[in-house]
């Protein structure tokens, strides 16, 4: 996170505390989770006590204080998705990844998460990975879905072996 980025975000608000959520998103995007160092930096930059930062972080479902998988697989289990088979979709993901919902695979590639309505119920059951929404995802699709994600990860890992790793 460059000084310029921080400045640009701070300039959007009359009070610097409002920049907390946007900056938390950026920190998490860079490290995959919110490191102690990031939390210290933000509390200093925004003039907040460490408690004020942590209570915000723990309030919101999207923030993580511990490293998880490189990619998160979100499966919606709210009503519209559940009516069309979301529980079976969750179970197929658990089988295909060999983990329970809320856990991370041994190789550190994926974290599986049950989430509430993703505001895409028209394509239920819905799965979100990164910015992408997928649906309707039927239980039969899941094994292949996971294979495709693994293949994508293999490609991007290969890439990073040749490129200098971005370390923020």
């Amino acid at each position: 996170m460059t000084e310029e980025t921080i400045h640009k975000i701070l300039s959007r608000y009359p009070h610097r505390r409002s920049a907390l959520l946007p900056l938390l998103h950026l920190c998490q995007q860079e490290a995959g989770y919110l490191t102690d160092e990031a939390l210290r930096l933000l509390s200093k930059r925004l003039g907040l006590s460490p408690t004020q930062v942590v209570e915000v972080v723990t309030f919101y479902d999207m923030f993580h204080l511990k490293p998880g998988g490189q990619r998160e697989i979100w499966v919606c289990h709210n009503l519209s998705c559940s009516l069309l088979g979301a529980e079976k979709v969750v179970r197929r993901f658990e089988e295909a990844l060999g983990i329970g919902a809320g856990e991370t695979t041994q190789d550190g590639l994926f974290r599986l998460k049950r989430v509430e309505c993703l505001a895409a119920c028209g394509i239920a059951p819905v799965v979100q990975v990164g910015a992408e929404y997928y649906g309707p995802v039927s239980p039969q699709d899941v094994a292949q879905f996971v294979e495709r994600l693994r293949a994508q990860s293999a490609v991007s890992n290969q890439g990073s072996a040749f490129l200098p790793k971005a370390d923020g």
Partner: protein
Amino acid sequence: MSEKILTKRLENPGYGGTIEEHLATGGYQAIAKALKEHTPASLIELVRRSGLRGRGGAGFPTGVKWGFVPKDPGLTKYLVCNADESEPGTFKDLDLIMRDPHQLLEGILLASYAIGCQTAYIYIRGEFIAGATILERAIKDAATHGFLGKDILGSGFSVEIHPHRGAGAYICGEETALLESLEGKRGLPRLKPPFPATAGLYRLPTVVNNVETLCNLPHIVLRGPEWFSSIGTPKSTGTRIFSVSGHVRRPGNYELPIDVPMRELIFEHAGGMRDGRRLKAVIPGGSSVPVLTEQYLDTRMDFESLAKAGSMAGSGGVIVMDESTCMVRTGEVVARFYHHESCGQCTQCREGTAWLHKTLRRIEEGRGRKADLDLLLDICENMKGKTICPLSDAAAMPIESYLKYFGDEFEQHIVERACPFASTDGS
């Protein structure tokens, strides 16, 4: 086919939502017109006369809400667009943002001009990463074309718009929780009054409006309040985008006159029921509202008609369930959600949602007791009308309605010690 307003551009299959395409189809003409022909006061009056009511859930008249904002030019005022779209079953705002972001930006410009705001925020749900990117881009393009920033179209009116991402908390859709969140805090709803119109963001006058509400504004300005109020009923005007999901053949968003009959919406537009099954229940306004049954299919979808039928128009999210659906399981899913999302400030809500979820799960799993039915009603009764925000009521009212219409199903679970719906998803 009735005329579409908000989604008319989207009927053109090639429409990509860029500023060039938007301008070629009448975009940003309403703000030019308003800046030339209206004072802020006359614009508020125009919107009031259109009868436009908020599409976020409560249905409050938009022009009236704006009228509560103090006129003192020395006071900083804020407009916040509510793009949290967190009510389960609702998926229209994200579509409006993805496919026609400039329509929303123009709506925000008009509202800002009316209330005297120079900095507007779009609070967009955190999961909607693509939407935030699209908005950033659209804002940049609008500024390049002189529709945003300082001295817009040489009128002396200046406004900036900033998207602001949430981070996964349903409660932040509630307007005061949203404002807390925008201030960089936990999303804990505030006690009202004071209302945001007088003490909102940073305790300054603030209007919070839903995405769809704001998208209506350019059309009202260009075509006049009489045209707008000629659609719908005298009290519920214009069109509404209904998000239809569940057991229908064609789930999706349908923009229709706000008073379309439920039967027409479900059976004509959404294609009717899947697999030749029979309709069992409809949640007509997002998961927070009471359920209705087949006998209410001829109810119209406007605010008054749904209230008369014992439910609410809410967010416009219509969840349709067929005869294979277990209503105890539905209750369990809905209660689990509110339990997870309760912010915990009020005892009735924090404890009540936990007990509802626990009791419903027990019944669904075949471990229910006869006394549980009274227990459920008792919990609901204690949750209503006593809390800081309406989430507690929103959790209790649906469960009461499931018991009212499907009480025998709950009893069957208890007597048979199992869920009678073998194919239910949760089994």
